[in-house]
């Protein structure tokens, strides 16, 4: 079987340079790992996976609706990143480059899921993967409210409010202008606030 390559834009951009300040020990260690991985060292790439997989999962989970899809996106993202390593320039920030690739993989999965499994979406959101409390009423209401948001608005509010990404970073991740990310965040917050308005008044 052959792999479906990600679009070139997913692996070739954006260039996110590291700060002009001298690299910290952590950045230097990461750069060493990147250079070794580019030379074909699998253990070095495993070190990069270890460093970035949690954040990559968070990015993917903000975009797709289920834990399984997020895991798929992370795996595909790392695999595509490994294949495109020769195109990565070590002066870039590896994390930002990787997150863009994972976000693209997640967006791709979300698009395919939307076409194929549209009826299952609310269920996949509500289905617990580890948290037994996910079936309670609040969670169900949140799932319903999130389902009424667009996929992009949902990703933006989770990336910003939960994961702490900045508007510009979210724009780069999702391939949208910063102003659009800002506007999506505003609409998503307003919408969720309205949908869950009487949350506090309930016992």
């Amino acid at each position: 079987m052959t792999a479906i390559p990600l679009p070139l834009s997913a692996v070739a951009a954006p260039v996110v340079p590291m700060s002009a300040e001298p690299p910290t020990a952590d950045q230097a260690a990461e750069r060493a790992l990147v250079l070794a991985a580019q030379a074909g060292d699998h253990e070095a790439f495993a070190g990069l996976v270890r460093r970035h997989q949690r954040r990559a999962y968070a990015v993917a989970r903000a975009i797709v609706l289920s834990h399984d899809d997020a895991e798929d996106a992370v795996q595909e993202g790392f695999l595509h990143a490994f294949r495109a390593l020769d195109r990565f320039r070590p002066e870039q920030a590896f994390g930002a480059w990787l997150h863009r690739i994972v976000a693209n993989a997640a967006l791709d999965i979300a698009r395919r899921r939307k076409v194929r499994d549209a009826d299952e979406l609310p269920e996949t959101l509500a289905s617990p993967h580890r948290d037994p409390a996910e079936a309670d009423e609040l969670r169900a209401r949140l799932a319903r409210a999130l389902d009424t948001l667009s996929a992009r608005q949902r990703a933006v509010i989770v990336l910003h409010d939960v994961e702490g990404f900045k508007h510009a970073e979210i724009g780069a991740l999702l391939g949208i202008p910063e102003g659009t990310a800002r506007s999506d965040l505003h609409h998503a917050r307003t919408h969720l606030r309205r949908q869950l308005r009487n949350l506090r008044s309930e016992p």
Partner: protein
Amino acid sequence: MSAPRKPASRATEADPVVTELLRTAHAPPGGEPYWAGLEDRIMASVRSGPARLSLVVQERVSWWSGFGEFRWTDLRAAGLVAATLALLAAGASFVREQADDARARELAMRAAIEATLPLPIDDAMLSRARRHLAPDAPERYLNPLDY
């Protein structure tokens, strides 16, 4: 001088309750064993190449999976085009058959007339004969009372 920015309205600020709900709903799986397992799976896919791609990707690369991506709208459009072409072909065939039939009838009639005459009818001869007739001759023959 630019106007001072308006303070963000309450609606644009993050609602702590909603944010907490979102955080819980999107919480990553906890525990080191999970992350170690995920790392192993990622590295296994890296080492074995494309064969370890996720199911979502794998199901797209089967030769028959392309059929699943047909949309009914595409099929409807293709059907309309095919029906239009078939209709045009049938129309052209009908017109050609009509022309052939008319020609065959004319030839048969001509053959029948020629069989009753001692000499074959020659178009040139007919046109020569017509030249000697008055322009209104056929009208006169057909409607003699009018003349």
